[in-house]
């Protein structure tokens, strides 16, 4: 039996397959379709200090091999998450990675403090890359100093593994990656969605309620693979790779580019068992090529 276990910045995962934040709710949504115990980790919907209603509709638009979304971090707030969602997730033998967002550095600090005191949180994914909120989100993730400031402060409030989720909407993602690693990130998640938009030519208006949105799906995969490739060679921290992974072949591409773990996002909407199909396919690939340890594949395309 080959080894699938990986270590994502201090978080031990039984396999490298997890879910992209915002595409998997808080877990129970997909429990009728897959056994959540089989996942390497569950990354939950972006959580903020206060409950948020999110953006106006339409919140989703289809584009060639992709979707644009502008959900706007609708979530019930961190206290609700701790009281209502965590107890459900703790029943599973799968670590929970909580994706966190804030309007200010203070927000990030407070949410981190509360989650670090709660029982059942495996790691924090610090979202400094949401393209759909006016304050916070991507504002932090597109500047090296701002990104590092958030990570440094969050670091002070927790001993949990810290994963910084990076935005692709930057000139040089390597510089941002280096800045957040310097500030104390244990791992990097990339990429978040690419900022995009689409216009209804009949109504002569943007389709999305928030005008612009984040592009995800297979359309962005080559960009994501390229960024994982660049960052993996520049920093000495594990990467959670994502961006248009639809099947095991796509996931393996990310691993070969340098990702230690992979997140399945938009694919869940198309195939509710996508995570399990990815996991099964990785096992088959390892068997086919006689790979004994998944870690041997990480960055194998350049190592």
């Amino acid at each position, binding site marked *: 039996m080959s080894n699938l276990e990986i270590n994502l910045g201090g978080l031990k995962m039984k396999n490298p397959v997890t879910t992209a934040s*915002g*595409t*998997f*709710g808080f877990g129970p*949504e*997909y429990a*009728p*379709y897959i056994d959540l115990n089989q996942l390497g980790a569950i990354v939950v*919907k972006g959580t903020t200090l206060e409950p948020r*209603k*999110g953006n*106006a*509709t*339409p*919140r*989703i*638009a*289809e584009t*060639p*091999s*992709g*979707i644009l*979304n502008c*959900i706007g971090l*609708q979530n019930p707030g961190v206290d609700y998450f701790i009281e209502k969602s965590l107890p459900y997730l703790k029943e599973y033998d799968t670590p929970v990675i909580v994706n966190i967002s804030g309007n200010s550095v203070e927000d990030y600090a407070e949410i981190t403090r509360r989650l670090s005191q709660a029982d059942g949180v495996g790691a924090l994914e610090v979202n400094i890359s949401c393209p759909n909120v006016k304050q916070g989100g991507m504002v932090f993730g597109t500047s090296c100093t701002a990104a590092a400031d958030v990570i440094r402060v969050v670091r002070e409030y927790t001993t949990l593994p810290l994963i910084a989720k990076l935005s692709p909407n930057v000139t040089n993602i390597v510089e941002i990656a280096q800045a957040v690693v310097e500030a104390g990130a244990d791992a990097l998640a990339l990429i978040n969605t690419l900022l995009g938009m689409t216009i209804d030519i009949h109504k002569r208006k943007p389709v999305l309620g928030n005008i612009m949105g984040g592009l995800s*799906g*297979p359309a962005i995969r080559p960009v994501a693979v390229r960024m994982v490739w660049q960052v993996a060679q520049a920093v000495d921290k594990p990467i959670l790779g994502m961006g248009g992974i*639809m099947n095991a072949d796509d996931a393996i591409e990310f691993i070969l580019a340098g990702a230690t773990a992979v997140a399945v996002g*938009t694919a*869940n*909407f*198309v*195939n*509710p*068992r996508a995570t399990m199909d990815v996991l099964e396919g990785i096992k088959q690939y390892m068997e086919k090529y006689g790979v004994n340890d998944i870690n041997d594949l990480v960055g194998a395309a350049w190592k």
Partner: protein
Amino acid sequence: MSFSGLSKVISNEKTGPQQFLIVLHSPELTKQAKPGQFVHVRVNGLSDPLLRRPISLHEIDYASGNVSLLYQVVGKGTELLSGVPAGAEVDVMGPLGNGFWIPEGVKRVLVVGGGIGNAPLLPLVKELKDRGVEQTVLLGGRTVDYVAGLEGFKSVGVTVETATDDGSLGRKGFVTQLAEDIFTLDKPDYFFACGPEPMLKQLIITADKYGISGQVSLEERMGCAVGACLACVCKIKVKTDEAGWDYKKVCVDGPVFEASEVVFDV
């Protein structure tokens, strides 16, 4: 638990301009289905179009294990679906959503549909008939060709009245005007409706004037259909909320909501 997998296409035929009826053999799905629910259909195995298409159940045949979907071709996904031949298999998830519920003690109801929004009302009309609830069905559309599913409703053996924008069938005008006549003349206890937003909005205002409550089935651009992505939300009145409303998910909290709770943007 919802079914998710391949279902055989029994037939897929054109029933009007840009309108098709697909019959799927899907016993696991069918046995759990109820009026007002929908399925999430993957039109091909490729990545473009990427998402599934949510389509409501038009007929539920428990005996044969078949369900049918009456749909309008509006874009690439439904265009591709319309080309799927009998004998092929399509990937469907469902049944999804809450569906209509028939409140205790309701004796006489008004069922109002507009355009392709008529589709999910047929299984409801059949269930109301089976339960001995008296009903009047009002169906509308732009022209005679767009009064979706008309023959099916007539074959149930209930009173069906129609309205079209151009007067090519039934009353010239909106189905909501027919509804108002009925509210005035022969006040029903309750109503059920599905159709375009302006129709639903007008109907709710009119029904409220006569003190009649009801249910409406809503639609919104949808992603996952299981409540995870939060794309298909609509505004629903919530007393505890500061603004008096909160976003609810059309896919799992709906698509059917109490009419009085829906907040429409002006």
